[in-house]
């Protein structure tokens, strides 16, 4: 190829890329949200003399240009592929793939985070539970890294230390070990959560320790909406979706479920959530601060107060046959000081059930 032809090609090709994407950025309609990242995208900033002089227009425009760039998701995928396959990086934005599961690095163990969580729980115990005849339990849900990280050469939390530290900070709670009830196949490949249909053993372990009756009578219904979990979008890699299921117990029909945030009735499974950003929110409608499940036909007469994160949403349906009344409390969304007005704690079983992910990053818990 003659040199001048090469020069023309360099300018022509590079110029086409620059001009093409410039025009694309300007002409293509702006997107409101990114489904893969589950967030709102930056919109065109207001251009006034004030926003220009204080520099806010410029900084917002940079975010806008990035968020609204044509083929953004494709470019993110290309970046992930180059990072992982060409540069042989072991993770991309801390997301890694091992044994066909996607997970996110979470290390090292944060003592301050554990102490903060324990402090939050202890405040609740001192305020509501110590003198109310409650029996208090603690259980920790291992995240996927427990099964994947160390085995595949990734740095991992010291889970033994995590359990030891938290149990020693919470001497008032009996610890229920559910680690042996789980393995990696009990989690979604593309999401952070466990699979509801795999939680039978966990439900048995919990109810046994809490001395609550338990019936294993349930059926599993597969839902045919493809489930792309939270790590799917973050990894930006092409992956097969997971299958999401729901378990149905005969007593579910007789349960009354109240969203105490809005004081309205709700369903055990909100099927409309399947078409929204996070299908896992199908379980008890996702992020709810306070839910009350009543089952007059339950085998047991006791009340359970479950302090939980999102993992608890898919576990609670298993426990409906064991307790006449279950309160699900998510103290990421409600301040514990308000609970006394809404819940009668007396003579209840109280279970603090949290994933290691929340415990090691506990700033979201309200104190």
């Amino acid at each position, binding site marked *: 190829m003659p040199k001048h032809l090469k020069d023309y090609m*360099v300018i022509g090709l590079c110029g086409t890329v620059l001009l093409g994407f410039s025009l694309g950025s300007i002409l293509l309609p702006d997107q409101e949200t990114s489904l893969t990242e589950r967030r709102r995208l930056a919109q065109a900033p207001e251009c006034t003399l004030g926003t220009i002089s204080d520099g806010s227009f410029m900084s917002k425009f940079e975010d806008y240009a990035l968020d609204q760039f044509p083929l953004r998701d494709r470019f993110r995928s*290309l970046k992930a592929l180059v990072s992982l396959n060409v*540069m*042989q990086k072991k993770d991309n934005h801390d997301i890694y793939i091992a044994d066909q599961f996607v997970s996110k690095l979470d290390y*090292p163990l944060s003592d301050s985070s554990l102490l903060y969580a324990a402090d939050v729980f202890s405040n609740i115990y001192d305020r509501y539970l110590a003198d109310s005849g409650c029996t208090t339990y603690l259980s920790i849900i291992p995240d996927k890294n427990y099964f994947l990280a160390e085995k595949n050469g990734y740095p991992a939390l010291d889970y033994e230390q995590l359990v030891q530290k938290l149990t020693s900070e919470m001497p008032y709670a009996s610890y229920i070990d559910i680690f042996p009830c789980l393995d990696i196949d009990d989690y979604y490949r593309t999401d952070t959560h466990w699979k509801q249909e795999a939680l039978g053993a966990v439900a048995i372990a919990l109810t046994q320790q809490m001395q609550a009756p338990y019936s294993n009578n349930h059926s599993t219904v597969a839902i045919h909406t493809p489930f792309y979990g939270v790590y799917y979008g973050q990894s930006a890699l092409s992956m097969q979706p997971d299958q999401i299921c729901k378990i149905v117990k005969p007593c579910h029909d007789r349960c009354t479920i109240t969203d105490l945030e809005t004081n309205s009735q709700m369903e055990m499974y909100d099927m409309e959530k399947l078409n929204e950003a996070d299908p896992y929110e199908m379980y008890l409608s996702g992020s709810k601060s306070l839910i009350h499940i009543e089952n007059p036909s339950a085998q047991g007469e006791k009340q359970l107060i479950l302090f939980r994160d999102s993992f608890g949403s898919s576990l609670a349906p298993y426990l409906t046959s064991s307790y006449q009344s279950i309160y699900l409390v998510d103290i990421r969304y409600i301040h514990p000081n308000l609970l006394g007005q809404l819940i009668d704690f007396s003579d209840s079983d109280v279970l603090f059930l949290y994933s290691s992910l929340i415990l090691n990053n506990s700033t979201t818990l309200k104190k």
Partner: protein
Amino acid sequence: MLFSSITFLYFFLTAVILIYYIVPKPLKNTVLLAASLLFYGWGEPRYLILMAITMLQGYGFGLLIQYLKNKGKQTAAKISLAATVLFSVGILGYFKYADFFIQNWNAVTGMSIPLLRIALPIGISFYTFQILSYSVDVYRKTAPAQKNPINFATYIALFPQLIAGPIVRYCDIAKELTDREHTISKASEGTRRFIIGLSKKVLVANLLGELVNAYKESQAHSILFVWLYIIAYALHIYFDFSGYSDMAIGLGKIFGFQFCENFNYPYISSSATEFWRRWHMSLGTWFRDYVYIPLGGNRVPKWRWFLNIFIVWMTTGFWHGASWNFIVWGIFFGVLLCLEKLVLLRYLEKWKWLGHIYTAIAVLVSFVVFDAASLPDAFATIRDMFGFGTIPMTNPESFYLLRSYAVLLIFAAIAATPLLKTAAKQLAKKPVGNAILRFAEPPVLVMLLITVTAFLVDGSFNPFLYFRF
């Protein structure tokens, strides 16, 4: 605005190149000046006024110095030069060094004068040095004063080299400011250089920066981790800075300018003296021509010669930042250069391998000082590097990061030497090899541009080291 940003690449640069090539020749500098002011004002609009004042005094004093020189009024010309130098250095001193001096004054006297906490205007160290070089060049009559204020302002504000150099001397581009050639070959070469620089910055430097940050954020250090950090930092700063210089030189070519080279594979040096002939060359030669030689250079008694070296290297360090770290960093190199001139060079030249090891260790240690938050931090890291600390030899985190960044580190280490360039040159000597290179260049450049775009779109991690200069 950063070169390595979507806003720059796909909004600013595309529009500027289009407009620049559409307008007739007499308007090209006006377009470049307007673009440069927009580029500068994008980050800090309020400092446009400061830049305008600095440029105005440089322009005015330039004309005055030439007028006085032509009239044979040497003393008045010297006073004018001193005035413009004082003004420029004063502005730089106020905005960059005021808090440093106040802090140290407070520490020495026990007083508590409040700090000014002024944000450092981007690129002030670079454009101040360009104005200084212009004034001195006019005084020395190595270049005529620029009468056209647009041309003068274009020289000072020229966005390709405004915020990260190279420090372009007026005498080097005085002719090009009024009469420069635009050819397809030059534009193609500039495009190639720009994309290579962009790739160095985004695909290598930024990723190595992540490794550096991982070290800084980690509580679990080990000796392996310290070495990983400092090797990554040394490569990071090289690819970051030389990448920016490549982009500047490439953009210069696209707009018809020929900027000086700034890096020449410094990590292959076998002495500190050689390292500084290859690292940030435009700064090194600036200090040589405008500080070292006016001080008398080496044509003075030996004690004075070493004093000159000491002054030059202390100010070189101080130019990099208002902190004792940078002063110590500069003095460290000053001491090494003196030692080399006195004793070491003859041995280093004899045993090249020893020279490479010595230079590598010296440069790595110097960058620990350069990057540390404080001098005690720097000494602690150096102690850890050589196993005199209390940290373990390795830990799982450092092993993981070593495995995760191994390919990038190896690639960066190779790319920091002339190996790839030499291989390409050898290949180009053969007709088939030359044909392959020519055929491959356009698609490879496009692939790099698209990959860089993917990395920019994906991540917001894009800090730029030299903003503080």
